[in-house]
């Protein structure tokens, strides 16, 4: 009957959609690995770009991640605690939520614009890692807040009640009963934010600039990250300086993809391992 034929056709299309999605991913990752794996040598990983490697980018990425997370985590978790434990339905709360939602939608280039003007030029006087990290912390804040909020909300009300009934104050309940229980979720929030930091390019490009040769020592020095370096290799480096720029760019891409896969797996592992812990 006609309805069945339509259904077969429709389901066929959805299957095709699913398959296409998977194929696209496989193609992209496959292409990057196939073109880039040859570039991955110990020299590549441990030597600076002046010698054909990406060590400055790797160190720069770690530097940026540490700085950004250090700034964003206390602010993000603090805001999440306020929203779940203390906030009542008033205009301030609504304003805060509006602020977070809106901030989440602002494109990274606009953050870069802002960070460049405020942090790099006005505050610090120069484009540098710290300017990039401050900018990135602003960008990553909504992610950190949202994910932390979910983690804290997931802690059952009974835990709070048990703690209060034992004579603990509000703050003690949050600090000693709720937060320890929310820990796996908060760790997920942090790892998600790390992932976001690593893949971010546009805002760092503007707020920090690319300094491919500089091995960062202080937060006020310039530097580069893996994704910035990939862009640099693909678009900016002169052929004469780095003839193998495409392969190196692909190699950088491989490293980036590996990091993302590790981060994704970590998130899943934490969720599944600790979900069991809370079940009663």
């Amino acid at each position, binding site marked *: 009957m006609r309805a069945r034929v339509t259904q077969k056709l429709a389901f066929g299309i959805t299957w095709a959609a699913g398959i296409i999605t998977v194929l696209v991913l496989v193609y992209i990752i496959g292409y990057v690995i196939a073109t880039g794996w040859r570039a991955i040598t110990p020299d590549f990983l441990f030597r600076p770009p002046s010698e054909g490697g990406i060590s400055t980018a790797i160190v720069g990425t770690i530097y940026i991640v540490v700085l950004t997370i250090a700034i964003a985590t206390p602010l993000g978790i603090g805001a999440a605690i306020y929203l779940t434990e203390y906030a*009542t339905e008033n205009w301030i709360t609504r304003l805060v939520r509006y602020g977070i939602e809106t901030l989440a939608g602002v494109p990274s280039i606009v953050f870069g614009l802002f960070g460049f003007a405020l942090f790099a030029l006005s505050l610090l006087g120069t484009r540098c890692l710290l300017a990039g990290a401050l900018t990135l912390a602003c960008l990553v804040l909504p992610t950190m807040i949202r994910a932390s909020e979910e983690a804290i909300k997931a802690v*059952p009300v*009974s*835990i*709070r*009640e*048990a*703690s*209060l*009934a*034992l*004579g*603990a*104050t509000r703050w*003690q309940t949050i600090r*000693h*009963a709720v937060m*320890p*229980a929310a820990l796996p979720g908060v760790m997920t929030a942090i790892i998600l934010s790390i992932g976001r930091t690593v893949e971010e390019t546009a805002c760092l490009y503007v707020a920090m600039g690319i300094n491919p040769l500089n091995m960062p020592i202080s937060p006020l020095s310039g530097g580069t990250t893996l994704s910035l370096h990939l862009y640099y290799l693909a678009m900016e480096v002169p052929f004469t300086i780095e003839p193998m720029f495409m392969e190196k760019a692909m190699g950088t891409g491989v490293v980036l993809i590996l990091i993302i896969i590790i981060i994704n797996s970590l998130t899943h592992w934490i969720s599944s391992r600790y979900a069991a*812990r*809370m079940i*009663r």
Partner: protein
Amino acid sequence: MEPKIETKSLSFYYGVKQALRNVTLAIKEHQITALIGPSGCGKSTFLRCLNRMNETIPKTRMEGEVLLDGKNIYSPGEDMVEVRKRVGMVFQQPNPFPKSIFGNVIFGPTMLGINHKARLEGIAERSLRAAALWDEVKDDWKKKSGVSLSGGQQQRLCIARVLAVNPEVILMDEPCSALDPLATLKIEELMQQLKMQYTIVVVTHNMQQAARVSDWTGFFLMGEMVEYGPTKVIFTNPQDRRTEDYITGRFG
């Protein structure tokens, strides 16, 4: 004899809905008082008024007084946190923290400021013994998570946790409803032992349990306390018709 904890004309409102009507009830020290009644009659709400736990729920209102040793626990100068220490609560669903057994028991004392290790261990062992759980957990109480115990053990852990802050009154909100018959029996035995040191108020929907375990019983219906007296009297010779109907199972 002075009642340990009593209410005078206690009324309670969730928003506009009145959940308790003018309840006056005196609970005697070192006795087990059971509160029975059909679901929704207000007995749990009443219980939560006794340790100011209802204040965690927004949009509620209370009228009347709750006196602990003669002093109103709701008067402005009273320390809410101190009240909760003196009047402890065990909940219907066991709710141990995802910490070790030891960590669970010493939570209360730690929050109150005790952090001397040996002292904490002493308190914890005493409490676990008093809750009849010590022998079962003493080998790995510092490593084993409170959440990994059986339902009955978890509830005894929650009782130990309350004992560790040295309360005077222990409130129990249907403590056995999530447990199997064997675990229930253990808790009931425990209650009998505990009453010698503490005052116990237990809410239960299981009439047989109330008859078995308690010395005094109060029957609640639609927010009112209909009848209150010695358990034997309530169950064999109730004064109020409604009490009799409930006891004999005509409703609820």
